[in-house]
């Protein structure tokens, strides 16, 4: 995309980098494609999924991307897409900015080389999400969507913490350690289950898990599975931002069986995350205004439908779950999971009945004294 700040017009001249995207508008798929220039997306984890998602959004002409990772490019990453052998040794965020700015100089790129799970990294992460300089009139934070493309539970819990505190909509993505399944999930604080509401879910590989040999390696990876999950994630992102089609709440991918389970999850009213509980309360309080808005939209839509009856054919349109019509879409609670999806970790036990080992007879209760006591033990 050679021209800086290329105008998004729908003329189909070969020199217009956005012509095929703007064609979506002429075909009636997307109402206002140009809106994409106004959106900011944060991508956490610039690995096999995150880097490919960043490239897709860059080619789509997204307004701004914030990129987070603490890692460097390694030769061992070359079985995946995006990074190049001559970028080995660069931070993933800097290497990504180098490539992405070449692909499309119109995108505003911000790179954050930090570990979000540490106290300092988390503070920077939070303040960068809150920065509204790109779009000062935005109502929420400074970004429209956060995409979690990290490869571990710890980092996902941190993204969940930040998004719950900031009331920030985000999408989760993951590829299993054996590289043959993956998933994407939409998380709307207070409205859907947060990442801590239920133990993390994985798509079953469809093979006997006991036959898997885990000894010897931490994780395998395939560019195909990662590319497919990145594609599903960015597709859902485009649908969410540009308001077309159905935005999936949870979509699984089982590569061995080519099986795509879907489901929805309501928040856990006893979630261990305090910020999630706050957002749940707010969501319930906002129900009357949400209902009014939904009704107004329905009235407006029916007017449009009368004027243009051809466009009202939408047999696959499943509306967002309405509290009054719980049967329309199958929602699940933590107890029952659809076929092909299972919990990766158990929930915390209730401890009342547990025989705890005898409490330490350590009478010291001053932090400094305890530190000295450990130091003394460490000294010999």
């Amino acid at each position: 995309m050679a021209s800086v700040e290329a105008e998004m017009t729908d003329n189909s001249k070969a020199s217009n980098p956005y012509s095929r995207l703007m064609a979506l508008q002429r075909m009636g798929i997307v109402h206002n494609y140009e809106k994409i220039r106004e959106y900011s997306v944060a991508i956490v984890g610039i690995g096999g999924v995150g880097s490919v998602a960043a490239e897709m959004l860059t080619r789509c002409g997204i307004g701004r991307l914030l990129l987070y990772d603490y890692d460097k490019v390694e030769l061992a990453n070359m079985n995946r897409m995006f990074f190049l052998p001559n970028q080995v040794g660069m931070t993933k965020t800097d290497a990504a900015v180098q490539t992405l700015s070449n692909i499309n100089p119109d995108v505003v790129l911000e790179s954050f080389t930090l570990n979000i799970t540490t106290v300092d990294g988390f503070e920077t992460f939070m303040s960068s999400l809150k920065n509204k300089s790109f779009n000062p009139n935005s109502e929420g934070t400074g970004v429209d969507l956060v995409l979690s493309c990290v490869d571990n539970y710890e980092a996902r819990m941190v993204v969940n913490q930040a998004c719950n505190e900031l009331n920030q909509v985000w999408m989760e993505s993951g590829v299993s350690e054996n590289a043959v399944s993956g998933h994407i999930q939409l998380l709307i604080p207070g409205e859907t289950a947060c990442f801590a509401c239920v133990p993390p879910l994985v798509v079953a590989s469809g093979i006997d898990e006991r036959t898997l040999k885990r000894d010897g390696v931490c994780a395998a990876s395939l560019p195909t599975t990662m590319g497919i999950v990145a594609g599903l994630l960015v597709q859902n992102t485009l649908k969410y931002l540009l308001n077309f089609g159905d935005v999936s709440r949870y979509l699984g991918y089982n590569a061995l069986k080519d099986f795509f389970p879907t489901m929805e999850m309501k928040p856990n009213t006893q979630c261990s995350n305090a910020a999630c509980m706050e957002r749940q309360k707010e969501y319930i309080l906002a129900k009357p205004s949400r209902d009014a808005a939904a009704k107004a939209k329905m009235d407006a839509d029916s007017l449009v439908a009368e004027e243009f009856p051809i466009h009202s054919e939408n047999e696959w349109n499943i509306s967002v779950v309405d509290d009054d019509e719980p049967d329309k879409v199958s929602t699940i609670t933590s107890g029952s999971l659809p076929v092909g999806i299972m919990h990766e970790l158990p929930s915390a036990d209730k401890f009342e009945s547990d025989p705890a080992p005898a409490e330490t007879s350590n009478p010291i209760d001053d932090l400094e004294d305890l530190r000295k006591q450990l130091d003394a033990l460490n000294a010999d």
Partner: protein
Amino acid sequence: MEGWDPTTKSTLTQIPLLTIKAGPRDGATWTQRLKEEYKALITYTTMNKKNDNDWFRISAANPEGTRWTGKCWYVHNLLKYEFDLQFDIPVTYPATAPELELPQLDGKTEKMYRGGKICLTVHFKPLWAKNCPRFGIAHALCLGLAPWLAAEIPVLVDSGMVKHKDDAASSVEV
């Protein structure tokens, strides 16, 4: 506790359990939690010394107690192999366990993530999740690091990836 050896099991049950669910962003309750962490570490270290199974040193590297550094060692064929040990307390602690790092072994084994973070067994995370907030740093060392060293150090030594410090100093090829 399926999947754990009897020694790990019996050691674990003697480490005091923690009660306060607080992470490094929780102010005064984190200080309370930190006291429990110290008590558990003091008991565990004392117990190891008494049982002639002393195998690590760890202490807070900052006043907030969010970063910890120290050493751990493992004896294989009567030789002692010692490594730097470090980790941060994550902001979502104790819902998530600290990721233990042995930076000197970074890149030497597949059972490690980048940056020298050890790759825990499939048994560790489920047990940690079930026991939140009762497990702390001492439990992570007992359940995470001790079995890892026992499984990986003999392999690393036998394959020549890790050399004893006396061998390394003389640097004579046999």
